[in-house]
């Protein structure tokens, strides 16, 4: 029987090395996969992971896809560090887009320098308000925030869809389920591409969250709450207040990402606006070790799988699930490597049915990995 014994002090080097190990293993598994599918593996890998980086357009697209991933993952990382499992970023993303988009449509056809900031604020408020629901239920009734936030994703997506089919539908749009095109859109960062200033906001979020988590008392309190809730109480930190903060920040980030998507590359509200960024961002957050800089890199990497996956679909007629398969493998290999960083596997001869209660405390079988703690 294989047993996992907790290591006394998990290696810090391995902690930061595992994401790279996971990437390597994913690439290896990808090669095996393509070989099994009878596609030339090296050419396919090149197409997915290198080809997009060879053109300005490709790099710009990387920023377009990377922006929402990074922005959402930053918010999620803050919340995950506190042991607050907000899984509903996808819904907060949708409501943020809806709220910000509704502001744009309400002032239609007016434009002005003030409109975009107003839309952004509405986007943040929308996402935060949607995240406030699980926060309220958790703090008031101790409801499980994983379930509540996840289920609210479907409510949010359907709410967006119904409004785009109804009240927010373009009156001149021949009954297509989409809103008017916004009169104001995000300034473009690289001329001739879709890369927009949202990426700069993403970078600012990386910087701010780093300061919050590494240097500010509030970030410190969040980390203590996540790692040792009793110590947080002993330290005199308000658990309820921290839960609210984590939800509002992660919801606000997701909402802003949603507004950027609507006011950036898409330019209007459509039912298909929430396309899974909110879930992929969970992978980004963990692959980036819940560390802002790591999240920036991981966000760009996963953005690459989106673009590369599309290219591979077109050029080699691979299934559209390619992207999801690679994203899934990243997370799988990362979590698997993490278990080995935190625990030492040991082969133990099969034991007699008379369990030994004393030995049990010596080597607990690990069923869950320890929280990553950079």
């Amino acid at each position, binding site marked *: 029987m294989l047993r996992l014994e907790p290591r006394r002090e998990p290696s810090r080097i391995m902690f930061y090395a595992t994401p790279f190990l996971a990437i390597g293993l994913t690439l290896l598994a990808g090669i095996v996969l393509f070989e099994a599918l009878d596609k030339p593996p090296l050419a396919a890998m090149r197409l997915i992971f290198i080809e997009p980086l060879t053109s300005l357009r490709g790099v710009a697209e990387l920023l377009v896809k990377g922006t929402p991933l990074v922005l959402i993952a930053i918010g999620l990382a803050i919340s995950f560090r506190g042991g607050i499992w907000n899984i509903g970023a996808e819904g907060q993303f949708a409501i943020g887009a809806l709220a910000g988009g509704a502001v744009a449509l309400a002032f239609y056809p007016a434009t002005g320098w003030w409109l975009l900031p107003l839309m952004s604020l509405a986007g943040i408020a929308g996402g935060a308000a949607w995240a406030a629901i699980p926060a309220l239920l958790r703090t008031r009734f101790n409801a499980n925030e994983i379930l509540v936030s996840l289920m609210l994703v479907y409510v949010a997506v359907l709410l967006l869809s119904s409004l785009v089919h109804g009240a927010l539908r373009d009156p001149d749009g021949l009954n297509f389920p989409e809103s008017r095109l916004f009169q104001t859109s995000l300034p473009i960062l690289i001329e001739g591409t879709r890369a927009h200033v949202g990426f700069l906001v993403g970078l600012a979020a990386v910087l701010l969250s780093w300061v919050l988590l590494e240097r500010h*008392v509030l970030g410190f309190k969040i980390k203590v709450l996540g790692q040792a809730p009793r110590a947080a109480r*002993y330290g005199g930190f308000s658990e309820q207040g921290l839960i609210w903060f984590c939800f509002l920040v992660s919801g606000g980030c997701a909402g802003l990402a949603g507004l950027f998507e609507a006011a950036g590359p898409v330019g209007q509200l459509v039912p298909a606006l929430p396309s899974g960024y909110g879930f992929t961002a969970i992978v980004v957050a963990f692959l980036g070790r819940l560390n802002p800089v790591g999240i920036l890199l991981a966000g760009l990497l996963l953005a690459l799988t989106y673009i590369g996956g599309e290219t591979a679909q077109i050029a080699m007629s691979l299934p559209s699930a390619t992207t999801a398969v690679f994203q899934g493998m990243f997370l799988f290999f990362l979590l698997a490597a993490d278990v080995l960083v935190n625990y030492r596997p040991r082969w133990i001869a099969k034991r007699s049915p*008379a*369990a030994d209660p004393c030995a049990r405390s010596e080597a607990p079988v690990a069923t869950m990995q*320890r929280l990553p*703690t950079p």
Partner: protein
Amino acid sequence: MTPALLELHGITKRFPGVLANDAVTLSIDHKEIHALLGENGAGKSTLVKIIYGVMRPDDGFMRLNGEAYAPHKPAEARGKGIGMVFQQFSLFEGLTVAENIALGISAKMARSGLRERIAAVSTAYGLRLDPDRRVGKLSVGERQRVEIVRCLLQEPKLIIMDEPTSVLTPQEIEVLFQTLRRLVSEGCSILYISHKLEEIRALCDRATILRGGKAVGECDPKQQSAHRLAEMMIGTTLVPPQRAAFGLGPVRLKVADLTLASDEQFGVDLEHVGLEVRGGEIFGIAGVAGNGQAELMEALIGERLANAPGAIEIDGVPVGVRGPAVRRALGLTCVPEERVGHGSVPDMTLWENAVLTAKTRMKLATWGFIGVPRAKRFAGKVVQELGVRTRGIEHAVRSLSGGNLQKFVMGREMLQAPAVLIAAQPTWGVDAGAAATIHKFLLSLAQSGTAILIVSQDLDELFAISSRIAVIAGGRLSPARPVDRLTTQQIGLAMGAHGGWEAPPGAEPTHA
């Protein structure tokens, strides 16, 4: 000549960076109570784990009754007649005594007539136990009996006891010793691990002293003074703490009529607890574990709020319904009983753990931003002054041994120049040298006007440093009495008397 019961020859065990056992040789005779004495980190637990088959030695060998003995797992050790009673019990609170015992022994033994045998063993050795009672309702002393009976059912030749008395009242200790002596007279041997030197002198025939992983000496503890034993253990001379008479200041911590229902299933409700601690005074609270100490600590720290503002006052400011942050700002520092995950965050570094409670008083943050250099300086000071053995303040607290974590947490709270210091088991798990350092710090804090409240199960410690002692039992606190007018026996009786002094066990609680 018959061979010794158990012989260890050159047992060596290495861990990364540490030599836990360095060629330890010792022998345990038949019908002998053999003490294993040593500071924390001297290698006692490693050695015992090797004997009990939890770990295997890197070098050396063992003989049991002259035959080679190398157990691969505890079950094998038990099969060969070696039993162990751990310091931390492995019992399920929701199950009955008989069910718990059945879980810990081999399936064959558990099957038939178990209840009769439990009854037989427990009456034979004076270990009163009702097989049908739920463990959650038992006192700590009774729980230990369950462990001992479980061990005895396997008819061991050698019983290893790891710090068995730390949770018992003086009277319970006497009963335990009678049981142990009786076992020895019937042919059993006992390996007795403790740091309480008086007990070892009273009970044991021979003592092996471990220091830094080596067996540095063997002696007859009855022929040595406790002071001499302690010096052999730490390898230097030891100066006992001097309790000086300080002038008492004003009341700095006041608890009045604190009543608080526990929110845990097997918790203890606090009932009308009242006490006053003056500046310059060390106030001791004695009691058997699980009589409301944990609940009282939570209430004093502010993790659970009292019902009235005036229930707790710090320097005259009512803080009963204010949280820990407000109390800390007023000068309260505290050490909860559970250091890992409560008093410290295991995966955070030492300096981050300094920020956990010293943030406000030591000004480790300005405008909400953590002053990392200041925090590191403070953590470094704690490490230096308390002699915490660590690879550095950048390392996770998880890497500290129990005794060193204890020194760190105590130091962090003591070096904040507190107005009121509350500590549960201030010297739990630390060696005699470190305990002396901690006691010295506590006394000098008291001298500088701090009001100190100590909750401890170690009566020797309470008698050594406190000026007044009260006893907590069943969530009630007796009135305090000056130490020089108290005896161990009186405290032992009060531990069974629910908040009074003279009442015998079982009588109506006399509340003062």
